[in-house]
């Protein structure tokens, strides 16, 4: 399988502090990589670099052979960061319609409504996001990221604030995306949920890649196994 995402010896510094140190990782097209690591390990920095939002000092990044900021790469990208990326003063429907329009989708209203239905927000579609609960906002943010059926999904803590039903909905969405050939990278602390979906696992510690490889049954049976075996402490 050709690599959809290539990270080649990436170094990223915040001042003198190296957030990513000589990070090299290839992610095959159609795979789902769970990015694991403790707080401050460099997961968010890595996802932001892939989304073209953060510059790095050394190395190279390619998404389907192109730089992350290229038009082609951005067209294929769905990104959910720490912020939900939706407007408080617009309704859920207006938010999705706007993101559908800038993605160049022609039936923007129809697609928006379909996604609101999918994430269980159809009843409140005309309500301003300001009035939404944290979980509802996160579901709307997920709909925004999946809206244009991207080929690469970069999800930073996508399970945050979701209840059990919403987690099941997200897991279903991720499996569907994998089945249609999308490449997914998700960073999370919810190891059990992530491992149940992931085909690959990458463990980061202090900006270094400690482990990268296929998700094994051992990891699934014992989520602490990865940290115990590969973490430096």
């Amino acid at each position, binding site marked *: 399988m050709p690599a959809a995402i290539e990270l080649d010896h990436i170094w990223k510094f915040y001042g003198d502090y190296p957030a990513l140190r000589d990070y090299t990782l290839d992610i095959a097209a159609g795979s789902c990589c769970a990015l694991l690591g403790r707080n401050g390990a460099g997961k968010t920095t890595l996802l932001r670099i892939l*989304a073209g939002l953060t510059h790095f000092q050394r190395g190279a990044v390619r998404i389907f052979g192109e730089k992350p900021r290229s038009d082609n790469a951005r067209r294929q990208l769905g990104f959910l960061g720490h912020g939900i*990326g939706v407007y408080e003063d*617009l309704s859920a429907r*207006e938010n999705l319609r706007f993101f559908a329009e*800038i993605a160049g989708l022609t039936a923007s209203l129809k697609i928006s409504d379909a996604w609101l239905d999918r994430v269980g927000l159809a009843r409140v579609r005309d309500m301003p996001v300001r009035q939404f609960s944290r979980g509802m906002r996160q579901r709307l943010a997920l709909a925004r990221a999946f809206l244009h059926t991207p080929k690469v999904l970069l999800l930073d803590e996508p399970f945050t604030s979701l209840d059990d039903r919403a987690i099941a909905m997200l897991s279903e969405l991720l499996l569907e995306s994998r089945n249609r050939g999308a490449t997914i990278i998700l960073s999370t602390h919810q190891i059990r949920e992530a491992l149940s979906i992931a085909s690959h696992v990458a463990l980061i510690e202090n900006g270094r890649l400690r482990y990268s490889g296929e998700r094994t049954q051992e990891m699934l049976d014992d989520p602490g196994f990865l940290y115990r075996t590969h973490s430096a402490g």
Partner: protein
Amino acid sequence: MRPIRQVFAVARKDLAIELRTKESLNAAGAFAIAILLLFSFAFDPDSEQTHRMAGGLLWLVFTFAGALVFNRGFARELPNECLDALLSSPLSAPSLLIGKALANFVMLIAVEIVSLIVFGIFYNVQWLNRPWELAALCVLATWGIAILGAVFGALTVNLRLRELMLPVIIYPLLIPLLIAAIELTNTLLSNQPLTPDQLLWGRVLVVFDIVFTSLAFALAETILVN
């Protein structure tokens, strides 16, 4: 067609938010009306001298009111990290910048219309003598202010003192545009014919708009991402 659609989507979104919150329009409109009202008490509105400085007064009010509008332009994208969502989406950086400028333009034109009505009432000036020329002048000068406001609004959005920094940066750059707009406005308000010399000011406005719109296109990616 796609970049044009994106430009209108960004502008429509900004205007929809503004119409709901009225954060910028209320502040800019109130500011413009208050200044015009205060000056009408400070000077004799019927005197020839006041009429001669009408253009200057109007464009200074428009520019100061504009700064209140531009400050909100990109600040609107900060909550919930909406700017990141936009920059990682298929939206091109020039479309985002031009869309923002278009929203600035519409809001500033709205402030100008209200200000002109107030101005006509309190200063006894017939600004409807040559409506089409005045409209063309307002469009050209306002676009120049709006595009500059969008470019520097993007540059200053992450600064702690952006409300202070934005006017400090844009006012000096607006001097040529303001001189041209003031000269032409004075001529139009006094209902005098436009001489070839004055038409040169019109060209200054056109060149200013072209130069800064081209710069916005060329530097959008650098301004927004770097």
